[in-house]
């Protein structure tokens, strides 16, 4: 990895300050070639005042230059930061000047972090957290990414890995050294149960984490004229949907992004459901049903006192939240009641929606789709191990634990790692 990479580190919009960052062995040379005022050698981690010049020698900008020599830097390579004025055009010019250096090239997306990972500066979960933090759109997503960056995910996976290794080693020790480890010394069932509980908790946390990277859709649906669009506007706090007392006003699916209690989500308003709608309205209803199918949560809005059963039947209960609208119509009634005009019950509804989507305060663990698939494999093999523990033999338990370990190794992005036999020899007094 002898090439040096460069990228504009700040966002594409105009700002007060813009940063161009380089990493690699030629970083200092490349900057020295296009600036005046950088001493040779530069003082590490010191803000040097420099002037960036164009090819014809004309000054382009004044700014600060910081040099972080390898290996004490973000990437583990020599890193140089140029802090200039935040003009996108200026920053592009400076970047182009730096690319004139023969060994400098444009960084690939995420390449600074990848180099940090390769050089042992961050582990895989922290490297992923950097990307998640950059992409975070809601407060919860920021907090979850920050926790992962702080090592929370790494320590959680590490704990699972240690427990699985220890159990696998115990079982293998018994199988390989039957005269040294006897059945009554084994503690497979309780340890397996604890492992399964941990994996289950991790899956729940990963589900919560998934909500942060792919913000869930919450769809308002129900009969025509239930006041869904009025509720939609009230929840948003702005007049997005046209509202009218005549039934079938909403035709298309309306969407808006909201952030409640730090959780970002897509709120959708749909056409009221009814039979015998005319062509355009019928197409709107079809779109509404499609949105409903993909919803993380469907909010069934029916006026207080009206029959709910036919509308509730549209969506299974575990994906559905029932709300009675126009709560002034009927004084009594079960469940959530809102009055979309005077705002009564709105905050309770927001809380109920967040509570259903993110039932625990656990921010969640950010895993990729591939990692979640490996987690499912892990859980399947732990489940099979538990079943074998009851119904079959220890060697089948051992086989499932080996497969579980392989799945966990995929999940953590490490190799098969230490041989289980190393673990056996380290933990058990065996052999004659």
């Amino acid at each position, binding site marked *: *990895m*002898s090439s040096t990479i460069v990228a504009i580190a700040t966002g594409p919009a105009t700002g007060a300050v813009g940063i161009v960052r380089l990493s690699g062995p030629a970083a200092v040379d490349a900057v020295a070639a296009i600036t005046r005022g950088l001493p040779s050698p530069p003082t590490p981690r010191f803000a040097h005042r420099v002037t960036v010049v164009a090819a014809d020698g004309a000054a382009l900008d004044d700014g600060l230059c910081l040099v972080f020599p390898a290996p004490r830097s973000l990437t583990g390579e020599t890193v140089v930061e140029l802090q200039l004025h935040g003009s996108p055009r200026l920053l592009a010019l400076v970047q182009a000047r730096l690319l004139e250096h023969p060994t400098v090239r444009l960084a690939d997306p995420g390449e600074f972090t*990848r180099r940090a*990972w*390769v*050089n*042992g500066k961050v582990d*895989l979960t922290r490297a992923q957290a950097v990307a998640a933090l950059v992409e975070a759109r809601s407060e919860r997503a920021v907090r979850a990414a920050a926790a992962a960056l702080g090592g929370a995910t790494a320590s959680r996976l590490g704990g699972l890995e240690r427990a699985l290794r220890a159990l696998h080693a115990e079982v*293998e020790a*018994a*199988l*390989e*050294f*039957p*005269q*040294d480890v006897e*059945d009554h010394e084994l503690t497979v069932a309780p340890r397996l149960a604890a492992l399964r509980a941990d994996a289950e908790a991790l899956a729940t946390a990963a589900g919560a984490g998934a909500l942060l990277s792919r913000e869930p859709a919450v769809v308002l649906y129900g009969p025509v004229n239930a006041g869904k669009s009025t509720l939609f506007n009230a929840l948003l706090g702005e007049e997005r949907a046209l509202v009218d007392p005549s039934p079938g006003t909403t035709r298309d699916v309306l969407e808006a992004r909201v952030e409640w209690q730090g959780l970002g989500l897509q709120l959708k308003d749909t056409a009221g459901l009814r039979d015998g709608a005319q062509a355009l309205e019928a197409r709107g209803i079809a779109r509404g049903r499609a949105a409903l199918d993909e919803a993380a949560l469907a909010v069934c809005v029916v006026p207080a006192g009206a029959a709910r059963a036919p509308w509730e039947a549209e969506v299974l209960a575990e994906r559905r939240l029932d709300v009675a609208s126009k709560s002034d119509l009927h004084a009594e009634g079960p469940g959530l009641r809102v009055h979309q005009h005077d705002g009564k019950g709105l905050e309770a509804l927001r809380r109920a929606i967040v509570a259903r989507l993110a039932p625990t305060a656990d921010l969640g663990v950010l895993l990729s789709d591939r990692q979640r698939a490996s987690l499912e*494999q892990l859980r399947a*093999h732990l489940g*099979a191990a538990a079943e*074998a523990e009851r*119904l*079959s*033999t*220890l*060697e*089948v338990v*051992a*086989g499932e634990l*080996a*497969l579980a370990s*392989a799945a966990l*190794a995929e999940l953590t*992005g*490490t*190799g*098969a*790692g230490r*041989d*289980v*036999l190393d673990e056996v*020899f380290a933990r058990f*007094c*065996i*052999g*004659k």
Partner: protein
Amino acid sequence: MDRADVIVVGLGHAGCEAALACARLGLDVVAVTLKAERIAVMSCNPAIGGTAKGHLVRELDALGGEMARAADLAGTHQVTLNASRGPAVRATRVLCDRDAYARAMQGALAAEPTLHVLEGEVAALLSEGGRVTGVALASGQQLAARAVVVTTGTFLQALMHVGAEQSVGGRLGDAAATGLSASLRALGLTLGRFKTGTPPRLRRDSIDWARCTPQPSEARRPFSLRTDAATLPAPTVTCAITHTSAATHAVLRENLHRSPLFQGAITGRGPRYCPSLEDKVVRFPEKGRHTLFLEPEGPNSPLVYPAGVSTSLPADVQLRFLRTIVGLEAVEVERFGYAVEYDFAPPTQLRPTLECKAVGGLFLAGQLNGTSGYEEAAFQGLLAGLNAGLQVRGAPPLVLGRHEAHGAVLLDELVTHGVDEPFRMFTSRSEHRLTLREGNAEWRLRAHGHRAGLVKAAEHQRTLARRARVDAALGWLSAARLESTLQRPGVRLHDLPGHPDLPGDLADEVETEVKYRGYVAMALASRDRLSRTEDAVALPEDMVWAEVPGLSAESRETLTRLGPRTVGDVRRLRGLDPAALELALLYALRPVSRGTPHGGKLGKTPRPPESSTNPES
């Protein structure tokens, strides 16, 4: 100069199998040994088999080897290990009459008309143009051969330690081989150094057996397919168990400074699974006692082998700690325990046939290759001898797949990964453990032995007939829709109404195949999934690992030496830390578009998918 087709150097457990395999192919074999009376001596414990080792013996037997048969003839006591922990880890261990075992093996050698045993020391290997041509004996005599199998065990540059005393020798009472190491080096092989040890031998009549827990034998069952159960002699020996005490551990701790191991006088690396008692006491201080198995060396032998007290402490300390053990208060020691250091040849220098990469026709087998154990040695001996013989005959070699035999896993681990301690086989080394059982070795390997020429046609026919009976029973179960009934825990074949009448071992096979079908299918599916994603991604063929920046010299060396071909290969490598592994993969799989010379391509030279055929069917 005298001529032979194949010369076998050394007649321990590897050498005997190698010499027999070549002779059974009809070749002229000269087997050179230091002392003919020491042929096939059991130099450590008097037992054949055990976990994974029993599997190797059964596999060896199915291929046409001799070890199982000798153990049947010499057996005095027998146990089934892991009896309740599953059919694939269930393992046979046969205690033998040490002298009877050697006699049985010597008898087998004598029965081969084309096998000649020569007493002498091989001082050098002769070669010409990168090919071995024969051997030179210390006497000055030279012998020519088309292939040479070297199985010198722990005898190369061997040094024995009892406490601070050192003496040259490969085994108590035997000399060391001194010339051959230099000869192997001259041929371009590198050698490493290992150590191993053996416990003291106790006088049987000095043990208070009444204070120990007796361990009677199970009923004898044949190890070998060639043994008729009806002819097996009854058990003749009862073993016993006793334990060390706090007093034992105190004696050991007080005298650690006199152990050559703790003193650093022994530099070779010893096996972790066979620690000395002083080592166990230091590493596991929380264990209040350690178990000893007292194993008589034969029905009439005055000696007892105490398994569990391997030591290299000085003789006076050995006697003191032994006498703190229950039942051994008045024990007399016939021979004290000792450690031996010896040269071994790192087996990554070998092809999968156990032929040296650097020298054509030169095969190495047994403890010389850095392994430990009679069974590991014997399996290598058979394969090395067989492949040497096949090469002489111009026939293709026999290389078994990892899914076919634990012995194949053993050989693959040796030549692919090498060894960093004396290598012992464990069933967990195999990713196919559930299908590599003692019970089905016959159907996994008999056909290979027959094709290679080691198994007689009549024996092969018998195996086929037995398999036909198993298949008929499986067919009956399927037709009667009784498979799911048999899969229930605790249900046996003979519990089913109208069940076919099968001998016990075949009924066991039917039950296991049916009960394990689901688990085996699931394990195969999981492995397929992994191999699809990882083994399908080939690394560039011209990969130069030395160029990977940031990789430690050690990791570069490992990768260069082992030459992984796919992402899966790299992941399975041992001795690479996770960061090095990721670094290696990232570099190897850099996209080509970046103007770099390498690029991993999906399916460029994909490893052929491992056969997903159930080896039982």
